[in-house]
């Protein structure tokens, strides 16, 4: 089931084109990560689908329908930093969110428990640490137990402990079957939390797919053998190699499409080479990401 369908949306600020003809589809139950360098249009995209910004062209549909008020209870959005009234307590801030979403007030206790803020419910918002503010933002998003969470940089500015806490909350919600759309600078976070990823550059989607698929693509293989130069020439001639680099000790290569490390080992063996080393280095999402956006 398609939860969100973005069709060809564009948004510019004056002469700056923030999003350009962007189309993304998010399926139910996926944790969809949106990656991109600063200024790639991540926040603009999430702001558009959250109804804060109006796209200049294109459209988007939630649950196959035009966005409308009933979405409040189905989609919880956290865009950029949390915005609350600094002079109000956590409880009063969340009470405002409950009223907006038509959620019973008793749900405040539940979300404060989940986010570990129950003991601070009477504190003013401006007395909270950054991590607590971020957790309160997550608490507000979780009010009413929405089916979809839209989170923009949820771990932004947090210390490692805070990042782990927020990541844990997201993972727990994902395990409950929620669809989560997450924009983050922290590639490691996307790698650990997301099932799918879309990479943005200059407001355009330049790569998209399952995280595992993106990771498998172009893994680096390192092999060692006797007569290393001869083996290198053989592999190139046989079409095993997409890219390669050979020195006196080893060959570092990426395999051509549809070739596997097992195929390579078998081929080398058949041609009289015994590999003393065959190491598959999975490409990290970070290197994949950097390669794509450069």
């Amino acid at each position, binding site marked *: 089931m398609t939860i969100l369908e973005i069709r060809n949306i564009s948004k510019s600020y004056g002469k700056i084109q923030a999003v350009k003809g962007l189309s993304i589809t998010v399926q139910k139950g996926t944790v969809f990560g949106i990656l991109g360098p600063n200024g790639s249009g991540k926040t603009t995209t999430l702001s558009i689908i959250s109804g804060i910004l109006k796209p200049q062209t294109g459209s988007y549909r939630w649950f196959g329908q035009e966005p409308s008020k009933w979405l409040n209870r189905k989609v919880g959005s956290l865009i950029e930093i949390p915005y609350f*009234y600094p*002079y109000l307590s956590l409880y009063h801030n969340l009470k405002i969110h409950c009223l*907006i979403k038509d959620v019973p007030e008793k749900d405040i206790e539940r979300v404060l428990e989940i986010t570990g803020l129950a003991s601070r419910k009477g504190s003013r918002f401006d007395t909270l640490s950054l991590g607590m503010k971020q957790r309160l933002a997550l608490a507000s998003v979780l009010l009413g137990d929405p089916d979809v969470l839209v989170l923009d940089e949820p771990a932004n500015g947090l210390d490692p402990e805070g990042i782990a806490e927020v990541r844990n909350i997201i993972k727990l919600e994902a395990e409950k079957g929620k669809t989560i759309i997450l924009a983050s600078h922290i590639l490691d976070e996307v790698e650990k939390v997301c099932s799918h990823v879309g990479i943005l550059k200059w407001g355009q989607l330049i790569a998209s797919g399952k995280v595992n698929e993106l990771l498998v693509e172009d893994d680096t293989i390192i092999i060692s053998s006797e007569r290393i130069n001869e083996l290198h020439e053989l592999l190139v001639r046989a079409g095993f190699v997409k890219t390669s680099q050979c020195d006196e000790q080893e060959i570092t290569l990426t395999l051509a499409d549809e070739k596997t490390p097992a195929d390579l080992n078998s081929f080398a063996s058949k041609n009289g080479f015994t590999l003393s080393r065959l190491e598959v280095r999975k490409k990290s999402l970070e290197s994949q990401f950097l390669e794509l956006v450069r």
Partner: protein
Amino acid sequence: MKKLFKIELIKIWNYASFRVIMILHFLLFLLVIIVSSQIDISVPGLTMKNLFQFPHVWESFAWIASWFNLLLAVMLILLVGNEFSYKTFRQQVITGLSRNDLIIGKSLVVLLVALYGVLLVFLTSTISGLIFTRGLSIAMVFEKSYLLVVYFIQAIGYMTIGFLIAVLFRNTALSIVMYLLYFILIEPIIRLMFPREARLYFPVKIISNLTPRPEFLTIASDEPMLDASGHSNLDLNAIGIVPDPLPFYLTILLALAYIAVFSSLIFIFIRKRDI
């Protein structure tokens, strides 16, 4: 509507600046009334006591209350400006309010504060009238009580202009400065560039003229200053202490029209611009 009202109540009751401004408004109004009630002008033909008696008390207290409408407008600018500076308007749209809801919520605050002003004028006028009026009659009590409604419209007018300026500038300090400048400097200067008749139709002029200065100089005395031929030498129009000669009903209609126009502009700005 009830939901929006509840949300606004949470915001304002817990906002210290709101409480301070409202208390200040209340105290300043009472102070002016108490101090002026102690002034006894004994110039022939003038008496201050009429200001505190039915039916003139409605007029004089509404006029005094109108001095402090600027304070109410500044308070509204603070509330709207906060929504922009805290980015809570933005957050509330993310959470699920429509842009219209944002405007309706703040409009309810405008109505609530204007009602408070009316209640204040009503209670103080009633108490003052009961204390100072001699020969009290029902007709006398209600004769000019319609000015409560007029004051209500005026308070809404002041705050609507404040609301519009806050939406335009999105910055509390700048909005307050621009609001005061517009009232004190900009519109009066613009008015001077127009013919005398046209000056009466400017928004601040219209809204300010809703609560006219009390006519105590003419109505206060049983023995007006007359010359030998029996005519008054006091040319009130010439010395500018009487309201401008625009029919009162027209002033009210124009004030309502301006409020409608400014409200429409607020809707347009909030709906069309990013928040």
